[in-house]
């Protein structure tokens, strides 16, 4: 196999794996459902149960808090550990999704 062909097949491989990684249309909905046991279904926490609701909060607020938790600059009992499970892109998606939910 000469170099050009090898490069070409590599490029094809990258393309194929890129296609396989196409995100499920409900990826963010599913991701946000990991938060629901604490923050309520669709971010609507039970009032008075001491957990923070996320539904309808400003997108920038949710995103910046998650970044602060991840960086360890915001006091937390648990969110500093959980926030490390998500990438910048996923934080953006989560924040947009919760902001779009009805309060």
């Amino acid at each position, binding site marked *: 196999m000469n170099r050009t062909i090898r490069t070409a097949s590599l490029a094809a491989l990258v393309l194929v794996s890129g296609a396989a990684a196409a995100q499920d249309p409900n990826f963010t909905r599913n991701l946000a459902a990991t938060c*629901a046991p604490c923050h309520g279904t669709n971010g609507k926490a039970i009032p008075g149960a001491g957990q923070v609701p996320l539904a309808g909060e400003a997108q920038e607020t949710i995103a910046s808090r998650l970044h602060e938790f991840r960086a360890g600059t915001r006091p937390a009992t648990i969110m500093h550990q959980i926030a490390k499970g998500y990438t910048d892109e996923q934080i953006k998606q989560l924040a947009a999704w919760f902001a779009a939910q009805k309060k």
Partner: protein
Amino acid sequence: MLNRRDFIKTLGATAGVATLGGCAGGASKARGHVVVVGGGYGGATAAKYLRLWSNGSVDVTLIERNTEFISCPISNLVISGDKALADITVSYEGLRKWGVRVVHDSVLGIDAEKRTIKLEKGGEINYDRAILSPGVDFLWDQVPALKSADAQAKILHAWKAGPQTVALRKQLEDLKDGGVYALTIPKAPYRCPPGPYERISVIADYFKRHKPKSKVIALDANPEVTSKKGLFTKAWDELYKGIVDYRPNSELRDVDVANRTAILEFDKVKADVLNVVPPQRAGDIVAKSGAKLANGRWAEVDWLSLESVNAKGIHILGDSTLSAPLMPKSGFMANQHGKVAAAAILNLLAGEAPNPEPFMTNTCYSFVDAKNVIHVASVHRYDAEKKTLIVVPGASGVSAQRNEIEAAYAIGWAKNIWADALA
């Protein structure tokens, strides 16, 4: 007139047509009938989310033998006298409001070929996809003296919340000051890794406050505390010196029921209240379904869909599964299994592949006394190469120390997860 069976058959037929027609995107394209067996943390969550995420386009029947949901998490506080059974009991009415057909019956068998489930009272039901979420059943063969119902009524497990929880509370109330409570803990894996250590902690707290001469003995089959070791042992040292006696490598062989004595390999331990958490395996219906079990105990599933690796169309959730690495058998995890399965089933019923990147989170809060809590948390994501979920590097940990703030969060978590599954 259309009886239920015919009605469901008709639904099944419609589903076939819709599946053939449906190709692109959107969960609301999903049509069909999903039967969920077991209305605990996994099954109830799956039933609700199938309705929520399909906008009601998928029919869901939940088969559950109990008429109310009683939570295992927080049940140790009923045993310690800090909560009542009513505080951990939730109605199934909320699921009915979502349009879930809730049937209180027992399942005798499931036929993966014919896609039918046989009920004790209600005949046979057809399904397009089935979810089995029965929790655990006990390996009584490994504690032979406890095989009879009569023996099980005397030496309690209280490892499924309900009448056993109340009965264990009663035994502790009747215990004289100066009595001994002993708990046996099976080798991992078992339901709720920190549960036994929470139980001995809150019972020690009850003794400290009400029966200060009494003792707690933990006979652990494991070589060490299996969850939150540092935080639990610190609590026992600092709060329960002279009360808690923790003994590792102490595997139960059998029980002398009349004398409430735990029989170990080289030792016998007599107690006034003996509480045995027996070794466990996947619930009976999973064992009977033909689904592949690892070591005859836990169901092997495809982690993208929670479908059994061999019994097609049967998805298995929660404690019954052979856990992915560092994934505990917890109510929180069962909730997450329920959601990943619901999303995958809706895709499959619409003719789509399951989401290739599922995520799951876990948190187990444990009380070390009536007011202080410790947690362990982790975020898990699917790894396509390993074909299982792995903990996202760095995204796990435990509480810095036991604290009162998290006691409020723990109760708030319980209320939110109960609503997430059932309201």
